[in-house]
């Protein structure tokens, strides 16, 4: 097998090794945790809202490369986005960030952060 893996491409490996927005936002308006029940992985998402905009966002937690990379790309995607627009995001929008097709068995990994945010915006 060569290292040119069909799933673990540069974009995923980079965001796994050096995730963007990894940490905790101070004095957050959103602070929510979500568990992937199939593996026990946990993500904590924190965010700051100003003028109906998500001005800061961060995540922490232990997860697989897919969940970490997806959380990294997703938080980049929603940073500085108006809440009205964030609420309209679908899971396809989140999965598309990864630029590769992942198997349904990994959807929960890739969507962990998205599910956390949905919970936080309820």
């Amino acid at each position, binding site marked *: *097998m060569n*290292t040119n*893996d069909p*799933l*673990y491409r540069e974009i995923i*490996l980079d965001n796994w090794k050096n995730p963007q927005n990894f940490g905790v936002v101070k004095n957050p308006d959103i602070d929510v945790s979500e568990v992937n029940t*199939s*593996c*026990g*992985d*946990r993500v904590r998402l924190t965010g700051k809202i100003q003028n109906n905009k998500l001005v800061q966002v961060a995540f922490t937690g*232990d*997860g*697989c*490369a*897919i*969940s970490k990379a997806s959380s990294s790309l997703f938080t980049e995607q929603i940073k500085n986005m108006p809440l009205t627009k964030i609420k309209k995001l679908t899971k396809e929008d989140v999965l598309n960030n990864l630029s590769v097709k992942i198997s349904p068995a*990994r959807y929960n*990994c890739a969507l962990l952060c998205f599910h956390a945010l949905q919970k936080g915006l309820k």
Partner: protein
Amino acid sequence: MKTYKKDFPIFTNRPKLIYLDNAATTQKPKSVINAVSNFYTKYNSNVHRGVYDLSFEATEIYEGTRQKIADFINASVLSEVLFTGNTTESINLVAWGYARRVLKKGDVVVLSEMEHHSNIVPWIRLKDEIGIKLFYLPIDKDFRLDYKAFFRSNINFKKVKIISLTYASNVLGTINPLEEIITLFKKKCVNAKFVVDGAQSMAHIKVDVKKMGCDFLAFSAHKMYGPSGVGVLWVKKEMLDVLTPIFSGGGMIETVTKDKVIFADAPEKFEAGTGRLEAVAGFGAAVDYINAIGLKNIAALDQVLTKHGLESLKKIKDVQIYGSLNAKDRLPIFAFNIKGIHPHDASEIFNREQICVRAGHHCAQVLLTALNTQSTLRASLSIYNSTRDIDRLIGGIEDVKKIFKIN
């Protein structure tokens, strides 16, 4: 080394499959599949009902399996063998049909850190409902049960009413010396009844319930080459009168009037509703299959696989093994992690080569917390696996290290 792969049609249909998830469920041999199919094509009718030949023959198959299981575990009488849905259902029958009625606030249930959730969750529910206490036997540095820790505790031995332990860990592979443990605990905890979770052990280790001295034994067919959906709770004869059914309705009564019911005797009393008839038929064939190979031969093969697995995994840099490195009293179940790599990512890479392993918490979060990890990979082997399968897994680990660039 003899392999039994040819007995299992799934490997004909998927010749490249390397199935290493036997602690989750085993594959089914042709004889079991045929027994299930034959039940539908030749004997299908409800049991214990009709006067007609067809129903009589179906009943003979159903009760024949009960007899085979009774012989397999050396039960005293047939009625000690109760069919349930699976191990979880069996343990719940003990919890709700016995413990819930007998245990009082302050009573103690002894478990271990290496239990599957099926042998933890029902007891937590009873703790919340009745106010019983749970005592978890810890594991030692060699991933074995430190059962002597109990005797160093300040538990009032007389308060211990249930001791419920697994025969073999579904994560560590550790085989617990249950005969020794039961003898010791019964001497000290005179009011305790002993429950054994045999889910992982039945396809590997001979169980003689009389010799072992337990009061209940729970296991599932699907982890011993049989169909899913059927399990057994073996109940020591004296306990059959104390145990009450959880489900009631058809097939479990002697007489019913408008406001009174007299239950039938065991085993019918505990088997309300139509059972999993075809699965029970297949279960009988599974017991025949294990008997034909012989548990001694299976244990010998297990040792070859365990030794090879441990030797191979030990050699790889960046692999952490959760389990004893000593093959003695250990099943070929290997929980491990590759440093820095999440089990989901590793198992995804293994899947490219059709290597099936489990990745996650293995329904043993209490154990994983004690091991200070959230999830692991787990390869669990069976009679159709070979040392070559282990070598393929090792190759898979090397692939993972390459893709994630760790060296």
